[in-house]
């Protein structure tokens, strides 16, 4: 089996997001880029499966749609244990644009299991995985929190209201994974970091596609107002303020 892990290159989760003065773009200056946390867990699970059964999982490929500045993130994935990488040379756009670019690079390639994070930590679109499955005409399962492979059978569990659901499906399939798919994201070893340079990173030209939507602007969240301390003896004032100021009761 060949596993493909879709990697979104996102700002470090501790980044303070800034906007351009006209609020029409995100200001990415000085941002540290990382593998989207859900994709990192997906990659970790793929590596675990390959390590546990190298005869079954032959190859792990990582892919991203993005500019050359996304390559360090792909090389980090290679250092963690992916075998090769693809970058579709297409930056920006919405979920449909990204899914179209990924589908264009993947169509006809022998990938059995395609893993996508449930969302990316920057735009939280939660759409690429489903769209990719649709464009490839593959089965897909969403909100997957565990994955096992047996022969050609793909066994997953999903979190549902009040419990878990076990599902069996066959390759080729797109799995949209969430927390739980792996516990701790893989930390690359020295050996991994050294060999990352020698692994293939293929650049594929972008498909002719245009986004299905256009961003017209951004709004920053409102400033958190200061915390008001109320004397524990003074419950009347608390009730009064909750009623008149916070208007929650």
């Amino acid at each position, binding site marked *: 089996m060949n596993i493909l892990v879709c990697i979104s290159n996102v700002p470090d989760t501790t980044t303070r997001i800034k906007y351009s003065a006209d609020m029409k773009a995100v200001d990415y200056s000085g941002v540290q880029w990382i593998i989207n946390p859900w994709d990192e867990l997906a990659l970790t699970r793929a590596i675990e499966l390959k390590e546990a059964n190298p005869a079954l999982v032959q190859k792990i490929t990582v892919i991203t749609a993005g500019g050359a500045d996304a390559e360090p993130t792909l090389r980090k994935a290679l250092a963690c244990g992916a075998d090769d990488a693809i970058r579709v040379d297409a930056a920006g756009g919405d979920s449909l644009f990204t899914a179209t670019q990924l589908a264009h690079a993947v169509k006809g390639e022998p990938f059995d299991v395609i893993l996508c994070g449930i969302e990316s930590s920057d735009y939280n679109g939660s759409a690429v995985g489903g769209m990719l499955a649709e464009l490839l005409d593959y089965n897909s399962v969403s909100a997957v929190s565990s994955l096992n492979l047996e022969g050609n059978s793909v066994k997953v569990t999903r979190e549902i209201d009040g419990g878990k659901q076990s599902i069996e499906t066959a390759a080729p399939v797109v799995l949209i994974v969430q927390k739980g798919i792996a516990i701790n994201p893989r*930390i*690359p*070893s*020295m050996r991994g*970091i050294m060999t990352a340079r020698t692994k293939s990173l293929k650049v594929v030209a972008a498909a002719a596609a245009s986004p299905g939507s256009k961003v017209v602007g951004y709004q920053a969240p409102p400033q958190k107002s200061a915390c008001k301390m109320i004397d524990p003896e003074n419950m009347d004032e608390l009730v009064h303020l909750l009623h008149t100021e916070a208007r929650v009761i």
Partner: protein
Amino acid sequence: MNFEFSEEQLMIQQAARDYAQRELIKDVIERDTHAIYPTEHVKALSELGFMGMLVDPKYDGGGMDTVSYVLAMEEISKVDSSVSVIMSVNNSLVCYGIEKFGTEEQKEKFLKPLARGEKIGAFLLSEPEAGSDATSQRTTAEDKGDYYLLNGTKNWITNGNTAGTYLVIAQTHPEKGHKGINVLIVDRHSPGISVGPHEDKMGMRSSDTHSVMFNDVKVPKENRIGEDGFGFKFAMKTLEGGRIGIAAQALGIASGAFERAVKYSKERKAFGTEIANHQSVAFKLADMAVKIENARNLCLKAAWLKDQGKPYGYASAMAKYYAAEIAMEVTTEAVQIHGGYGYVKEYHVERLMREAKLTQIYEGTSEIQQIVISRQVLSEF
């Protein structure tokens, strides 16, 4: 001139940071309080390749440069210097010493397991009566033809009990003074070796410090590194590089405490505002930032010189001296910024302050670094 790190160097820094902030942080207070050796962490860091990161891949090491080593040591030391000292002794004293000066057979037999972290090394120079003055070695390695007979006591040995491989400095020809000293690779489990009790230390409490006694221990001749009488030079050369490790450790202790102080100063309020808005706190942070930046630059300069194959003894003495001094200053101020909370374990800065103190003492005290630096200054200028 270029102040950019390579992609690999940044990856190593991130890997060390991830491990420290996700794993080491979890039980660091517990391990420090009860002086518990970090067995699992040493194993995990060995698997990641940190225990032999400087060794050539041909001897199963990570093949990384010294700049990467400084970055990794800083990140690990931000959280736990009991772990980083194990990494430092193994990498920059024991592995380096064997790789640089050992024979091919010695590298094959001893370096490989050390580089893989399957065995941990210890460096046995200090004695009860020979600390700063390392020339007055009382431990003897008597030449018995095809073996050396080792007798004496070593003190303050990091990894003293857990190590599998010792590098022992001992006197063979007392009449020749420091030119009669040898260095021997000794199996920790050789007959005649006994290890004293674990030292109950002020800081780095979960690192494994012991005295080690040798009583008629036979060491094969082929375990001597270098020519007869090379031991003292070996120790001095190896410590030159070791100091970069300890300098980076001191840097990490300082920057770990600094990061906590900055965060705390933006959360804690006094007199109606976050304490960071009080100028005396903000100025403390400014002074700490400048000192840390200076220490980092000295560490990286020494590491860069070593990577370039240029002389680095002067630079590493400066880095070790300065970083250790400012680690003490910065951690003390970090405790001050935390007020009463800084004085309890939960906030980590008191532990970092205890750890900082050791960096002024081992691998050459601050005063010894001043001697090294001043000698160079006086001979050159």
